């Protein structure tokens, strides 16, 4: 569905995407993962024809450079935040976006129901919470029922509850058979959203793997702070160290180094040993 070959993007002397390649099959969901400045958003912008680039991008066999309109008609794009139409009424924004896609108001109502914006149609965009703005962005992207969705950091700026709702919504879209390209720097959420991850850094592909292998592939570690009383902490440190973890006791409990995507293993080891913990924190 999407083929990118030798994509390079420069801003002056700075190379922000460097000889990048990507192939996404129809119905596949992939994540572009990496730290801020890795080049993820730039790849999305190249796909949409928003910026010039060197290299080749085709979407459903169409050259993104020569057939920009046709390519964009296949794509629903969800920006990081819809903060720029603050003074517009939600319904007006949806009608405007639908109009530009040649879609009638029936479809707008359908999408509003699907996304759960029914109670917010008459509000100004600026009156929406971060989660609702995200939903509005998704609603505009879904208006044309596009086969491809590009989601730029879909859960950034969301609180835990809104993030959970957004992830559930995206999971549903994924199961509808759409092709999804998601950018993210949250390692935990890519596992829930996609089939495959392309890790990027400094504009280049670092690795490409299944989402749950990402932390191991890149050696991404996290520290779990398991809070418990002093006796339990002593025993917990011993149990964890003997199970192969790097653990040490501190004044509040025990600190244990874990793979960023396998934090539960340390907790499970303590549970098996009959050690209860009161609370836990993730340190990076």
């Amino acid at each position, binding site marked *: 569905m999407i083929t990118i070959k030798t994509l390079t993007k420069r801003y002056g002397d700075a190379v922000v995407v460097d000889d990048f390649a990507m192939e996404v099959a129809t119905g596949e969901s992939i994540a572009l993962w990496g730290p801020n400045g890795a080049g993820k958003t730039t790849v999305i912008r190249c796909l*949409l024809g*928003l910026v010039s680039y060197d290299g080749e991008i085709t979407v459903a066999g169409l050259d993104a450079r020569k057939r920009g*309109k046709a390519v964009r008609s296949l794509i629903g794009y969800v920006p990081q935040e819809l903060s*720029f139409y603050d003074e517009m009424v939600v319904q007006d924004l949806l009608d405007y976006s639908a109009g530009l896609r040649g879609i009638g108001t029936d479809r707008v109502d359908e999408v509003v129901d699907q996304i759960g914006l029914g109670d917010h149609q008459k509000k100004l965009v600026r009156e929406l919470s971060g989660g609702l703005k995200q939903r509005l962005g998704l609603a505009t992207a879904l208006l044309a029922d596009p086969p491809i969705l590009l989601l730029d950091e879909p859960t950034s700026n969301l609180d835990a509850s809104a993030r959970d709702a957004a992830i559930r919504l995206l999971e549903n879209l994924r199961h509808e058979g759409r092709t999804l390209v998601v950018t993210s720097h949250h390692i935990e959420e890519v596992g829930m959203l996609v089939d495959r991850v392309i890790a990027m850094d400094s504009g280049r592909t670092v690795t490409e793997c299944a989402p749950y292998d990402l932390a191991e592939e890149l050696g991404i570690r996290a520290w779990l702070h398991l809070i418990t009383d002093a006796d339990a902490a002593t025993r917990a440190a011993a149990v964890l160290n003997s199970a192969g973890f790097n653990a040490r006791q501190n004044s509040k409990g025990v600190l244990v180094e874990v793979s960023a995507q396998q934090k539960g293993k340390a907790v499970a080891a303590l549970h098996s040993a009959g050690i209860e913990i009161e609370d836990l924190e993730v340190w990076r």
Partner: protein
Amino acid sequence: MTTMAVEVLERADMGTVFKIARKELKGTIGSRWFWMWVVAFVGLAAVLVMIALPSSSINGHAGFGRTAASLVTLVQIIIPLMGLALGALSIAGQRESGAMRFLMSHPISRTEAFWGIYLGHVAALGIAAGAGFGIAGVLTATRGVSGGTGPFVWIALVSWVLAVAMLGIGMLISTYAARSGAALGIAVFVWLFFVFIGDLGLMGTSAATSMPVSVLFGIALLNPVEAFRLTALTALSGSLDALGPAGIFAVDTLGDSLGIALFIVLVLWLAVPALVAWRRFVGKADL
């Protein structure tokens, strides 16, 4: 393969252009600053009309012509700044906020986006000019003044043309500026150049150089604000004194062709900056 041009020119769909124009118009007339401009223009126009009407004549004008004459100076200061500012903020502002990227993520071409934004602002400027001249016209009529409505309407239209020409220049600035603040700064400088520095600069140049007066006055006539002023004042057929030295020189040199020459100058200022801005926007590497 290396390519810099982002988009190959695709045929514009006028339906899409008008949808964007409608949204831009709605956004512009919904903004507070636009109404601040309109209120300032309308308020000053009303004051000028009230001051002008009791006097017997202004440079020989009567009726609506008198009102129109009193508005020319106001228009040549306020309208260019309004058009330039609106244009300067249009593209740079939307790029800065991310709105342009959202707009261009739709299946539309850059050509459609550009002309949609342009036409929306053209309509907004029409409303502003219409409000100013409309209120001034109503005030004039309610005071029992009649006659001279033709030149009054003509000057209102030419004011709009001046505003749209300035909009094109503002949008051209906007396609080059990275930030809306920078675009606005350049627009203010251009406004000062056209309205004040242009004339003062020419006077200074005239005094300091041996450039022929005909060349200096010729350059003055290329200033769109000066072209507007002369178009407006010649339409009123009043005293030649009001035309100033460049105007008198133009009347002497061009005679009956002056109207056509001024019309060509205004049309060029209307079309060329907008077309260059469009080409620049379509070929722009990054939005």
